[in-house]
């Protein structure tokens, strides 16, 4: 096992700066009507930025990048089960009128 990894304040501040820029971006993007170019583009842009922000928090603030594979597996498993719930339930509700 490697020595306990300590993430430096420099990385924390860079991540914080990036998160702030993304917050401004997402607010600006929400004010523009992107749906005229592609239906639902406003939602896609907002959620893409949110997923990117959340990934930065998990990887750096929560040290997932420096964690053992076993911890990373738990993180991936939680996202996987969330995806199963969203995907299965939505596909059920969306396909009901098709009958």
């Amino acid at each position, binding site marked *: *096992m*490697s*020595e*306990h990894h*300590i*993430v*430096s*304040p420099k990385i*924390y*501040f860079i*991540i*914080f700066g990036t*998160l*702030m820029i993304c*917050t401004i971006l*997402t*607010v600006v993007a*929400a*004010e*523009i*009507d*992107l*749906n005229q170019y592609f239906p639902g583009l*406003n*939602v896609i842009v*907002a*959620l893409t*930025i*949110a997923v990117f*922000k*959340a990934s930065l*928090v*998990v990887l*750096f*603030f*929560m*040290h997932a990048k420096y*964690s*053992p594979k*076993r*911890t990373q597996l*738990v*993180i991936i*498993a*939680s*996202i996987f*089960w*969330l995806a199963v*719930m*969203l995907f299965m*339930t*939505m596909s059920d*509700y*969306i396909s009901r009128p098709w009958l």
Partner: protein
Amino acid sequence: MHRTGELFGQYKTMEQQRETAALGMWIFLSTEVLFFGGLFMTYTLNRSTYPDIFSEASKTIRLSLGAVNTVVLIASSLTMAMAVWSSQTGKKKLLTLFLIATLALGCVFLGIKAIEYHEKYVEHHIPGWNYQFEPNADVATNAHTQLFFSLYFGMTGLHALHMIVGAGLLIWLIKESLRGRFTPEYNTPVENIGLYWHFVDIVWIFLFPLLYLIDRH
């Protein structure tokens, strides 16, 4: 008995002991992902069923307050991360300062949230007997916007409850840090409560666009 960083018998190294503590916290957090996930699921389903009426309701909550709260919460994540770093490098005074800063930012977040809830109260937008979306709103509009506000209060309320629990944990951390209990050898409570705090931040990172942003244009 107070733990001070001794190696317990079932572990071979300190590193293994530390990783096991973090793993346990992550397993708890994965149950939290599904806990909030159910609410996100309900929101997604109802929003796709009533897109226009959800859009109308979403526009009545104040974007500026939500945006400021996002900044406040991400800043509190930074101070929490810095608190973890301070405990890992043995800077005891800095640790206490960063923990107090995190608690203060958490309280600012809850204060702004209270202002937002009060606005909704004044506007009769709290689901219940006195609910009215706007004067002379028809029954269907009242019913479906009420669905939005039920989800709004349910999701932000559960999030706020997690913040209150986090604030309580921070008060305990501050108390223990003042006694000088956390050292580079033993700082598991700081690291694990840090993980919890960042998780609550992530929930807000998704709540903000879903409730405040996507229907704003």
